[in-house]
């Protein structure tokens, strides 16, 4: 079943996309019809106008999903499952002729020869005008300047058509003619080509780690694949091409000797380190430019014109041969297309960093599989499952060891016979450290649970400590003034700025993260409880005094319920902030949790996994918030109506 789902992702996607399109159009229609009813009975600005509207939610969600399908090339793959493979073949051709293109003004504006001449002439001028004084002898200086002059001369000779050897002229013509042949081939009928059976057996687009199957699977693909092989041969030929000329060769030989001599003279005389360093540096600079010129890659201005025309025709022919693939690419495959590297074809642009929704779901199902032995889970932990845990571990988590130290009596000592009999304190300590087997209980487990657990524990601590303190700060001068500086000093610091410190102090296990989150939740709860408490209407407090309520009763029955809306809003905010902080903290350290998964995924550029974690975080955050909204509307219906 999973295999089928995985193989047929394109088909599944096309069904989903059609459903989404229908949903989008239908919900917009319903929405528009509703809007005309509503327009009559409600005034602008009335918050009631936000009630309901599920159809807009539906159209919003389906629009997002459709955009996602589109920009991730999900639409392209669903309806044109072969396009990716054909684009890969085209990419092969483009990669193959890239070296020839690079020498011509096609992608860049100038011939490579022109660029070489401009750059080297500039650098020669700089070298000449910055000649270091007092480092070289007069004769050496003359010699060096001579090399610079020779270099300029070489450029001149290579640029002169009359000096170009016949052999190199013929070689260029050869390549042009071969290219023209390929161009002819491109415009001929390719339907008679047949993809190899090996090619047809390749896995579908995107179902394995290699994104696009490399071998052609369509006649058109076979054509491009074939062309690419020939083009590669031509490129090799072109790269070997040199502008040989007898005139240049003699100068090059002479100059080489000169440089060699100069280098030797460095070693002979004993000079100060500084002077030696400067000499070496200058000679090297001169030599570097010379080396760029002596290999004969500069051609006369008209030498490559014919080749340039052939390449242009060739490229045009490629576009022509692509045929409707061009339309598919323009409308359904946004972004930078497909690129071929040495061993594989990869999607570029949004197709790369935005994986297709169906791929993401497939990845999620893989992670969600709780069977660790069969490749489920991630890095040895399930995503969200349960496991047996020892009660002893729980006990050791809850009872701190030092509590036992405080008990009267000493720990046991070994006897003179070398025996050790544990006394009651030893036994209790073993208990507190979780060394006593107490049975097992089932417990939730997995990356998601680990993250949830951290947030919930921190939030609970934050609420139980923060709310009482906040309420007292709202009503008592001492509490307000005493705790204000502490809280207001640490609160504005972004939690992540605390993270390195806290994780160092408490360790990278749960303790550190929980404490970090607790700090976040605590500050938020204190502030919201404080605002709620201090916002109690004075007349309500006075009324309850006159009704005979004691201070404690006022706190419990008037101030607390009055602060409840603020407290619940505080919890809602705290959950959100904690969740965000947690993921970041897990990225810094740890071996479990959603943030941990994303961090690993980042280092291996597993975009599907990155998006799975992002979606899990987003959906859980959304779930928290919906839950809190529900709780708020159920528990405090009087909000804003007092």
């Amino acid at each position, binding site marked *: 079943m999973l295999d089928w789902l995985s193989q047929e992702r394109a088909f599944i996607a096309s069904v989903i996309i059609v459903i989404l399109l229908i949903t989008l159009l239908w919900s917009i229609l319903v929405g528009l019809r509703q809007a005309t009813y509503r327009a009559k009975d409600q005034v602008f600005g009335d918050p009631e106008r936000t009630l309901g509207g599920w159809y807009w939610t539906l159209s919003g969600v389906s629009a997002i999903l459709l955009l996602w399908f589109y920009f991730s090339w999900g639409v392209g793959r669903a309806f044109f499952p072969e396009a990716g493979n054909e684009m890969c073949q085209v990419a092969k051709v483009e990669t193959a002729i890239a070296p020839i293109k690079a020498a011509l003004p096609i992608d860049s504006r100038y011939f490579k020869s022109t660029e070489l001449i401009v750059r080297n002439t500039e650098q020669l001028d700089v070298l000449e005008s910055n000649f270091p004084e007092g480092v070289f002898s007069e004769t050496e200086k003359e010699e060096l300047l001579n090399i610079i002059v020779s270099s300029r001369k070489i450029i001149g000779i290579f640029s002169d058509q009359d000096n170009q050897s016949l052999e190199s002229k013929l070689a260029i013509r050869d390549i042009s003619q071969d290219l023209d042949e390929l161009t002819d081939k491109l415009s001929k009928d390719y339907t008679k080509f047949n993809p190899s059976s090996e090619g047809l057996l390749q896995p579908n687009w995107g179902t394995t780690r290699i994104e696009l199957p490399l071998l052609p699977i369509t006649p058109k693909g076979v054509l491009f694949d074939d062309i690419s092989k020939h083009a590669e041969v031509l490129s090799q030929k072109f790269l070997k091409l040199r502008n040989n000329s007898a005139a240049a060769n003699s100068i090059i030989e002479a100059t080489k000797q000169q440089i060699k001599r100069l280098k030797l003279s460095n070693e002979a005389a004993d000079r100060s380190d500084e002077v030696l360093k400067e000499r070496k540096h200058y000679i090297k600079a001169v030599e570097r430019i010379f080396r760029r010129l002596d290999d004969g890659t500069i051609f006369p201005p008209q030498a490559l014109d014919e080749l340039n025309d052939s390449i242009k025709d060739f490229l045009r022919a490629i576009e022509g041969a692509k045929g409707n693939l061009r339309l598919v690419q323009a409308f359904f495959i946004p972004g930078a297309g497909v690129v071929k590297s040495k061993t594989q074809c990869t999607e570029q642009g949004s197709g790369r960093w935005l994986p297709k929704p169906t791929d993401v779901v497939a990845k999620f199902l893989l992670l969600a599989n709780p069977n660790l032995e069969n490749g489920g889970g991630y890095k040895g932990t399930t995503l969200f499952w349960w496991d047996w845990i020892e009660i002893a571990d729980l006990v050791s988590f809850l009872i701190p060891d030092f509590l036992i130290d405080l008990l009267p009596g000493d720990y046991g000592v070994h006897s003179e016979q070398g025996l050790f009999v544990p006394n009651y304190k030893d036994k209790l300590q073993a208990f507190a450290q979780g060394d006593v087997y107490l049975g097992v209980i089932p417990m939730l487990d997995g990356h998601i649970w680990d993250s949830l657990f951290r947030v919930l524990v921190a939030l609970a601590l934050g609420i139980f400590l923060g709310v009482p303190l906040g309420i007292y700060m709202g009503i008592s001068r001492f509490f307000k003034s005493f705790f204000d500086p502490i809280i207001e000093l640490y609160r504005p610091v972004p939690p992540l700025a605390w993270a390195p410190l806290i994780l160092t102090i408490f360790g990278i296990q749960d303790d550190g993260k929980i404490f970090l989150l607790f700090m976040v939740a605590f500050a938020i709860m204190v502030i919201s409880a404080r605002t709620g408490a201090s916002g109690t*209407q004075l007349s309500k407090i*006075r009324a309850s005094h*006159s*009704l*005979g309520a*004691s201070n404690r009763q006022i706190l419990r029955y*008037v101030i607390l*319920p009055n602060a409840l809306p603020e407290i619940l809003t505080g919890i809602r905010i705290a959950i959100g902030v904690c969740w965000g902080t947690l993921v970041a903290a897990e990225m810094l350290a740890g071996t479990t949790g959603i943030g941990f998964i994303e961090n690993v995924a980042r280092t291996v550029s597993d975009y599907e996994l990155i998006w799975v974690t992002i979606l899990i975080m987003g959906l859980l955050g959304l779930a928290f918030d919906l839950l809190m909204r529900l709780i708020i509307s159920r528990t405090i219906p*009087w909000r804003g*109506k007092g």
Partner: protein
Amino acid sequence: MSDLICKNLCMTFSNAQTGVKVEALKDINFTLKKGELLSVLGPSGCGKTTLLNMIAGFLNPTSGSMTLNSTKIDGPSVERGMVFQQGALFEWLTVSKNVDFGLRMKKTSQGESDSLVEKWLEIVGLQGFGNTPTYQLSGGMQQRVALARCLVNDPDVILMDEPLGALDALTREKMQSLILELWKETGKTILIITHSVEEALLLGERLFVMAPRPGRIHKEYKLPFAEQGLQTPLRDIKQSPQFSEVREEILSMIWDMEEEIMGGA
């Protein structure tokens, strides 16, 4: 014996930031006997609320003394019930939970408090609304709840600060009758602050007209209208020549005071 006695009451507010001192009240002297109905009238800012808050125990006077039933007034207590302009109901509680708030604070038994709540809701005309949340009530109903909440506690003195100020004319008249009835039936001492001259005349066996800067009792009246109101419809009383005469006198007195303030300012 069971009187409310105020002797030489003075109240001076000093602004902590500017150091400006305001003499809100100066030398207030009066005795309110048990069962008396006193209304207090005066231009805005003459210290009416301040006086009430001091009697309720929310403010300590700068000097002078107050006693109720021969005990010194020192902080709020159930003996002195308070009704605020806006009800000050607990919006998170239902009507009956609001009304039995005081009883719950005293830990009265459930059965006893239930019957008391029922009785008072009926008296103020809210039977059947026990389980309604207070934010769903109209302004007049909310004031009735506030009255019931105060009366359930059986206070000796009821203090009201513009209790009907936020109500429309008709509801206001109904509530005025209700207050008169309650006064008659319970025999409680009632001190009521109002902005409306008519209301002050109708709801005051005695009437203080206060003057500002410093706040003091300018003139005291003894009036027959409250007694009359127990038998005659309030509208008829308002039309009597005697009523109009006193009303005009007090109105011009207050106008003079307002003018003085404006002229002085």
